[in-house]
């Protein structure tokens, strides 16, 4: 197809035949594969219909070989890209002998090695020289699955049938022809079918783009040289990953944390990880974690594998390509029937974030003594990321969106304060929040406030990112609010002397009476369009290191900028300040205070007990009520 590049010239070329690789061609092909995944990502993001894909970027694009092993991914959502090979393998084995050029497969079934029902996988086999050689794959979070509430993520579903349409591996396109009956069946099961049809097109466009580019690459270099260099690329990641893990101290490390609730009535469910570093391998074993939840707060194995592996991926150099060569160094054990690996027909729609986020955090808790310079303090676990829905006054048609501008923050790490609007460990900061004006333009809501919440983060030598306070008023009658997060009662942990963050929470406020209904991290509530508003105060991230080691000048700026109070500066950070709006540090007084405070020993991880957050009790007024996992 290329007039200029002559594939034969490349095939006839040199050393790889003798068992070696030309290091330069290696770099070129590595670059090209990454560039293909980038192009797929841009095409999907720019052409999607729902804000969760187009503005929040809740999707991932990756390439696999025929095995299937991951060979390239765009730096998207780690909870997707670290275990997506499992569902591709499931698709491949379901259709063994019936995979043809021009086919496209769908799957969202959590028990077919998908993450959770909200994540729809579209996969196109790529045939080169009439042989199945690659898979071009995207996984995108669908705003709706036709569940019993208008959300694809709901903690209150009691089994998979309440979570909406379940799609085991299925052929949507057969040798280039769309199966219209299947297409209609899928859309008939969804709210917002017009928007979700657009999203499906965007995912199909993305994998088609990936397929075209892989074909072009093979036309230029020839199929077998490309495959040979893919091996070299996997080896390269393998080698670099091995080196980094070898540098970590061998041993067994344990961590524990608690999921706020099972989505129904059980609270503070333990998640335990034993991390074993042995040579160039790491095993994360979730044995000992609590039994599977009644509601949707269960992990699937695809989530367990990714959640265990993701922290390891950020301990090693971010420059190492995250392909099979890298991922294969990490094993995850998650006993069936536990919250970390539920069995059919348990609901799992929250899996990627609850308990997925905590499953990442407990690895950090475990590894804090092994690799203190590499761990992250606790981060928000998808708390206060509500899905709002309702009907438009003028047409009665349903509207809905998942809102990310109230997301909590990232925990601190060595040399870095946390980022705000971190959303979830599942995305590691890769989820975007929608502009206020876009939200108000697209949906019948008004955002009354979206600002930093003072004193919401954990303190330390490095402080967690700040949480946010957001107030939303419905403009088109009543609206419902579905939340599915975690970490309000069991807040993000502080590390190495850092303190935990607040945990935060949400309430529905009657603006006439002032009465407030506080809602646990997950729950479904109706907001009266006449008199009520929704307010979310999300948590900051946990702190890292002893607060007494934070430079006094930084503490001074934190006070000046309203991140912390003067009292906290004095009591926690030991910093005395003058009284101006733009204060100066009182050096002698600070020295003295810090010496006195230094005698207090600080724990390596905090908290070490469940239900440690005090935010709700501190903030509830007389007459307010607290609802655990309410149903509409």
């Amino acid at each position, binding site marked *: 197809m290329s007039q200029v*590049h*002559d594939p034969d*010239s490349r095939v006839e070329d040199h*050393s790889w035949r003798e*068992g*070696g*690789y030309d*290091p*330069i061609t290696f*770099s070129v092909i590595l*670059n*090209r594969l990454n*560039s293909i995944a*980038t*192009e797929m990502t841009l*095409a999907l993001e720019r*052409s999607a*219909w729902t804000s969760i894909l*187009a*503005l929040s970027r809740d999707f991932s694009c990756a390439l696999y070989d025929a095995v299937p092993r991951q060979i390239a991914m765009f730096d998207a959502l*780690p909870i997707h890209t670290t275990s997506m090979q499992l569902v591709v393998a499931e698709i491949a084995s379901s259709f063994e002998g019936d995979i043809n050029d021009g086919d496209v497969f769908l799957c969202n079934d959590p028990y077919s090695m998908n993450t959770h029902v909200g994540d729809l996988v579209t996969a196109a086999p790529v045939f080169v020289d009439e042989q199945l050689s690659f898979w071009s794959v995207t996984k995108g979070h669908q705003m709706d699955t036709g569940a019993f509430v208008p959300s694809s993520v709901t903690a209150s579903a009691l089994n998979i049938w309440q979570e909406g349409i379940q799609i085991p591996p299925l052929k949507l396109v057969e040798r280039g022809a769309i199966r219209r009956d299947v297409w209609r069946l899928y859309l008939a099961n969804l709210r917002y079918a*017009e928007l979700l049809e*657009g999203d499906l097109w*965007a995912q*199909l*466009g993305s994998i*088609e783009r990936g397929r*075209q*580019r892989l074909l072009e690459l093979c036309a230029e270099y020839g199929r077998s040289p490309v495959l040979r260099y893919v091996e070299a690329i996997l*080896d*390269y*990641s393998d*080698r*670099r990953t091995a080196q980094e893990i070898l540098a970590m101290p061998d041993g067994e490390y344990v961590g524990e944390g608690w999921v706020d609730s099972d989505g129904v009535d059980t609270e503070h469910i333990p998640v335990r990880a034993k991390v074993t570093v042995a040579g160039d391998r790491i095993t994360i074993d979730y044995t000992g974690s609590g039994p599977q939840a009644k509601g949707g707060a269960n992990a699937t194995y695809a989530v367990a594998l990714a959640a265990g592996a993701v922290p390891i991926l950020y301990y090693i150099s*971010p*420059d190492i390509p*995250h392909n099979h060569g890298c991922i294969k160094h990490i094993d995850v054990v998650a006993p069936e029937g536990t919250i970390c690996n539920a069995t059919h027909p348990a609901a799992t729609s929250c899996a990627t974030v609850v308990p997925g986020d905590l499953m990442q955090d407990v690895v950090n808790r475990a590894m804090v003594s092994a690799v203190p310079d590499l761990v*992250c303090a606790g981060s928000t676990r998808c708390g206060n990321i509500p899905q709002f829905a309702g009907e438009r006054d003028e047409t009665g048609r349903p509207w809905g969106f998942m809102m*990310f*501008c109230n997301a909590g923050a990232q925990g601190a790490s060595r*040399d*870095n304060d946390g980022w*705000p609007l971190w*959303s979830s460990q599942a995305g*590691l900061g890769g*989820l975007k*929040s929608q*502009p*206020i004006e*876009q939200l*108000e*333009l*697209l949906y019948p809501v008004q955002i009354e406030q*979206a*600002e*930093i919440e003072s004193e919401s983060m954990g303190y330390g030598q490095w402080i967690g990112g700040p949480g*946010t306070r957001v107030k939303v008023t419905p403009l088109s009658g009543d609206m419902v609010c579905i939340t599915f997060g975690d970490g309000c009662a069991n807040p993000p942990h502080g590390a190495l002397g850092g303190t935990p963050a607040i945990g935060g929470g949400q309430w529905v406020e009657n603006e006439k009476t002032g009465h407030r209904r506080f809602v646990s991290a997950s729950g479904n509530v109706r907001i009266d369009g006449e008199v009520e508003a929704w307010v979310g105060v999300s948590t900051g991230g946990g702190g890292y290191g002893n607060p007494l080691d934070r430079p006094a000048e930084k503490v001074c700026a934190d006070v*000046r900028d*309203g991140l912390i109070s003067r009292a906290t500066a004095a009591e926690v950070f030991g910093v005395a300040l003058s009284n101006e709006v*733009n204060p100066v540090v009182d050096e002698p007084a600070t020295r003295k205070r810090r010496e006195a405070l230094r005698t207090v020993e600080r724990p390596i991880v905090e908290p070490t007990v469940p239900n440690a957050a005090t935010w709700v009790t501190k903030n509830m007024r007389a007459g307010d009520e607290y609802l655990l996992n309410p149903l509409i």
Partner: protein
Amino acid sequence: VTYRIGVDIGGTFTDFTVVGDDGQILVWKEDSTPRDPVAAIATGLEAVADQLGHDVQSLLASTELFVHGTTIATNTVIQRNGPRLGLLCTEGFRDVLYFRDGFKPHRFDIHYPHPGTFVERWLRVGIPERVNRTGDVLRPLDEDAVRNAAAYFSDHDVEAVAVAFLWSMMRPDHELRAAEILRTLNPDIPVVCSHSVLPEIREWQRTSATVLSAYVLPRIGRYLRNLEQELGVRGLKRPPLIMQINGGCARVDEILERPVAILASGPAAAPAAALHYAQAIGGSAVGADAVNVITIDMGGTSLDVCVIRDGRPTMSRDIFVEEQPIGIQAVECHSIGAGGGSIAWIDDGGALRVGPRSAGADPGPCAYGRGGSEPTVTDANVVLGYLQPDAFLGGRRQLRFDLAEAAIDEHVGRPLGLETVAAAAGIVRVVNANMASAIRAMSVERGIDPRGFTLICGGGAGGLHAVQLARELGIGSVFVPAEAGAFCAFGMIVTDVRHDHVAAHHLVTSSAEIELLNRRLADLERHALRQLTEEGFADEDVVLELSVDARYPGQVHEITVPFSAQTPLHVSDLREIERRFHEEHQLQFAYRRDELPVECLHWRVTGIGRIAQTKERPSVEGGHDAPTIRTVSAYSLEDGELTETAAYRIDDLRPGAAVRGPAIVQVPTTTVVIGRRDVLRLGGDGNLTVDVAAPVSGTIPTAGAVLA
């Protein structure tokens, strides 16, 4: 003789390009004087005037066009040494700048720091007021709160203020009134409003554009006013024009209304330069045979890539400076750390990498002999024989072959088990691969196939790599302008005056209601015309270009689609918009939905004041029918080893001469390397074109090594 002068201030050099109406071109480089940039302009003008047989006064008196590009604004932002800013925003939304879009780049680098903001939080003041999406006032402006803020700002030595309220582009009243109060109370503190800088939806981008404008305004205000005055005193009659990031230039007054427009504007002149050569490369700047061009400008530290399709540069509204969005419509220029000074290294997985770290100008490549010890791309080009040690910068700088060789050996050759020459060839191939990726990012990743494009190369290092790069991308033709060394400074004097106007108007193409739209378009066009008329452009030199930001109904992002219909639009003209949209959508996203109408949001009118084309340069004289050919030992891509290679000096060639590769052709400001079956031609105008041969069997050098 009358002149046009382009002056482009860069970090190292201030470039001058002077074109006479007789077609003569003079290119001059003066050392930049960062403390007082006008000093370098003054010295440079003297040098230039002298060479043209003028004094500065008479040169400027006969200058009809003076275009200036400056990095002062960009440097202020990069170095973060601008004034202390205050920001007024809607109460409840003080953290728009800090929150950004909630996106943290570099997923797996948890230590990556937040980029911060340009207004500290204690100086961001929320004002009770609120307008909604339809422009209705939900809460009136609290004027007392604005007065208090004015006092607060003046008490705390704020030097400039940005005002950015939610939805102000739908109803600017609150911003206007707040600015009025601020100016009355603090007459010495400049105020910039978001509705005038960027009247578009998306509060982060709009606030950021406004804040960056306020941040650079005091400094560039003083600088540009001073420059204007100094040039006036020295005899310049028409006020100077300033280069903008939208690829056109504008008067100082207009720049100071929207200072963000000059951030990162240097490379934005590349498309203008490229279009100037449209005829020379066998097409035209506009119309059916409008050219398809990719420009590369490769200097010491970076490579800038622009793409021009059908005569139009790729524009973007997602440009960042110092990780802050500028929001306005800009020439998209992809920049990567790949220049002559880029350093080659082996990563801990044993892969050869080049850049983004650069040896810069100091110490520079090892071959400069100024203390550099890490091998660079320039060192590789020296070892490969492409850069002749005694011919660099026209012989002004002697290069040290031995130092280049030793560094490559130590840092690349030995670790990879490669001979020095193979290692140097590897460095060049890797940097070429990086450059090819940058070009793919601008083309293939946007659905644009670069084959069939012409590659125009500028910058001192461009010619060394351009032909090989073209081959890698399947591009058949490379163009090396005579002004390659001062590509963007040249672009500035051939670019047009350009103003972008935008109006928000919602329309679905299935509707027939276009009267209100026509009124809005007429307003925009009238405004654009008046502005250009006031600037002295005759009607026949004014061009209005129309485009619309469109999407399928329900989609979130838009594509900007140009259309050619004449106003007032008829319903049938909407079919053209639909057609163009479907095509563009297919191209970019690999699918189209013809069954759907198209939803239009922002309508754009770009007013262009055409600057007359310069005369063709007189034919190059001199040269020889049988030019002197030196032979040098240079690396052959085909043979994978050093071979005797012909080296030419451009002055020795006659116009029309053709050189068959392999060869090295030295042009005063760059060196062009061509391979075995490539053919280079010298045009009558001094420009070079290269027909790039397709690769044949065995073109990849045998590196003969396994990864370390």
